[in-house]
């Protein structure tokens, strides 16, 4: 497999810790804090948006998984597999043992996704580029077919219900559970987002990201590129799993559509839209995507795909850094102006 010279432009959202004007950085950090505060306030300020945010955060966690892989220059067209496996793991658990606790369901889902990713990962980490993407696609489609075929167990295309789990032992009503889910998602978003950023900067994360630029050198550092890729692959799948099982609980039902290839492509789509390689971009992208999709399908039912497609084209052609790139350049301009005034 050749290391291509024109590697994916996924550094857009990456700000090297050493560089970058510090006023801009602090202004941006402030923006993120305001953003998180706004997300926390949504259920009270704009309850009608709560569900949109719930879905966006769950999907954003999945996109975060795809973002991890993009950092190694790899793109998977089958990561919905892990989104779906986790959701089904949760649903099967709830069916087998009703009134299981919410935390157990979450853990079961993530465990399912992680185990599956080790199994699939051992195979796919031998491949790069298009082959890597296509093999992931093949595995997700195989799982999809299995879900459809074994309909006695999986409910086929109709899927299976993921009953509302208990929360620390108490059965909650619909609205309370929705609230819990929402704030757990906020916590997961912040916590896992923070962890992923740390991971990117950590020794293991850096070794993983060198897959993108130079596997030869990596090999000559005494590191197995496959192992390095596997570490990120499993992380990415686990993140997708968190997103998937949370989405399953939010929806109350899981269907094979979770695994369908268009879902995988959609996650890559959102990752690039938000700013490929950027943690914040994953969530920002997911929010914008869900909003456009929801409102476009309501107000422009016939052309919502067209609107999304056009949106993506504009981003790629005119703002390759994605939404995060646009934000950063806005802040850069502002802080440059300030700097000039000194």
């Amino acid at each position: 497999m050749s290391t291509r010279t024109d590697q994916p432009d996924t550094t857009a959202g990456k700000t090297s810790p050493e560089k970058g004007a510090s006023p801009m950085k602090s202004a941006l950090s402030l923006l993120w804090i305001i953003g998180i505060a706004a997300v926390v306030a949504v259920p009270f300020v704009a309850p009608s948006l709560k569900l949109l945010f719930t879905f966006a955060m769950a999907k954003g966690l999945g996109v975060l998984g795809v973002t991890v892989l993009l950092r190694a220059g790899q793109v998977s067209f089958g990561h919905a597999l892990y989104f779906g496996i986790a959701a089904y793991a949760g649903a099967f658990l709830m069916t087998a043992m009703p009134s299981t606790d919410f935390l157990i369901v979450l853990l079961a889902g993530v465990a399912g996704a992680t185990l599956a990713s080790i199994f699939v990962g051992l195979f796919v980490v031998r491949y790069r580029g298009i082959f890597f993407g296509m093999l992931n696609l093949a595995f997700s489609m195989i799982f999809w077919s299995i879900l459809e075929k074994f309909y006695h167990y999986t409910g086929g295309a109709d899927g299976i219900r993921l009953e509302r789990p208990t929360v620390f032992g108490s059965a909650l009503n619909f609205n309370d559970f929705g609230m819990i889910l929402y704030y757990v998602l906020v916590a997961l978003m912040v916590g896992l987002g923070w962890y992923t950023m740390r991971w990117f900067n950590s020794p293991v994360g850096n070794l993983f990201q060198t897959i993108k630029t130079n596997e030869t050198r990596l090999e000559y550092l005494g590191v197995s590129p496959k192992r390095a890729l596997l570490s990120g692959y499993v992380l990415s799948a686990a993140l997708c799993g968190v997103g998937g099982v949370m989405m399953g609980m939010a929806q109350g039902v899981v269907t094979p559509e979770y695994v369908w290839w268009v879902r995988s492509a959609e996650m890559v789509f959102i990752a690039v839209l938000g700013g490929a390689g950027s943690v914040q971009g994953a969530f920002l992208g997911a929010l914008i995507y869900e909003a456009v999709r929801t409102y476009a399908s309501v107000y422009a039912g016939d052309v919502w795909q067209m609107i999304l497609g056009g949106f993506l084209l504009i981003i790629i052609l005119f703002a390759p850094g994605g939404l995060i790139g646009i934000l950063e350049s806005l802040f850069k301009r502002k802080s440059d102006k300030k700097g000039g005034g000194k």
Partner: protein
Amino acid sequence: MKTKIMKRTVSALLASAMPVVAFAADKPDSLKIGMTAFLTGPASVFGVPARDAAEIMIENINAKGGINGVPIEINFIDEGAGAEALTSEYRRMVQSGGAEVMLASISSGNCQTIAPLAEDLQVPNLMWDCGTQRIFEENDYKYVFRTQANATPEMLATVAYLLKTKPDFKTIAVVNQDYAWGRDSWDIFSTALKAMKPDVEVVAEFFPKFGSPDFSTEISRLQALQPDVILSTSWGGDLDTFVQQASQRGLLNTSTFVLPLAESSLERLGAALTDGHIVGARGDHYFLHPERRNDEDFQAFMKQYEEKTGDVSVYPVFHASQAIAALTGAYEKAIADNSVDWPSEDQLLAALEGLTFQGLGRPVTLREDNQGVEDQLIGTSVQTGEYPFATLENIMIFDGDQLTTPVGEISIEWVKTLDAGFVDAISFDQFDN
């Protein structure tokens, strides 16, 4: 301890945040309702006609002054945009869009998602088209009603018609879409057949994937096997492709096709669907309904619909008409029963219990488990030359009461208990065309 505090905090927060829900019995300016349907994707062959029909019917109702002077305002949600978009838009419509009643949905999967959601949101939901029999057999619902039959009576009527018109067949093969409907309908059909005519041999079972563009291999095999009867509960493009390809290769001349959903494809199949095949309509739905075709309201609507869309009506149009008839019927009943200007939600729910209403077909009654009891129309295809496509002859309309799984029983278990006598005992009306 911790959880208690948390729960209390959450509840307090909720209480302060939730808008006060008032059950205003005052007459609203308009009655807002929402309807989910496939406006995109393969199932839009059902969704788009249903939407067009609903729009016409509501226009007609509003032209006559609405319900007790209140006009109806309908908004649609595209089921084709995916489950998230569907549920979030459904919730938005109910929680902040002011929708009083929801009509959902076409997909059985979506019905399974939405039924508990409607219960949680406490919004009356009329399941207007989905076929799964599981909903009321697995759970009790207060807010969810089904204004049409489900898969069980639809399949039993087909079996009954087949046994009455072609009692001597020996072999059968099935070609169904590979998803829940295809599998479930075959489960019911084959179980019923085994119970009523145990000597029939199933020679092949095919479940090509949903949306399959090619059935050549299946058709080759069926030609080699030469079964007496070929069942397919497929619909839309899949059914069209299968029947067209089978017709091109002469399979329609050697086997009798049993197509419980073909009423919705008659126009598109044109000359491909030759004489002598069994066609169903998921209820008593047929644009030449033998009992209704001379009625003034029926004719007027058919004309309106054809002018608007250029097509003849198919069963989702009838299903939409039933849901809207149930809606108006329930409001009118609640208003009359309680002698109010406008009913509260509880009064509306009470009116829906046991309601009888009539759309474009025969009257439908809601049972105590909220399942509608709908009669079933089945016929045999014939190319008369009057239309550029097949119409029906030897039509039977079966009594829905006898075909519907008794309250509290599970369909498959109940169907297993039936026997050959069931077909003889069933009451039906017969029409030449």
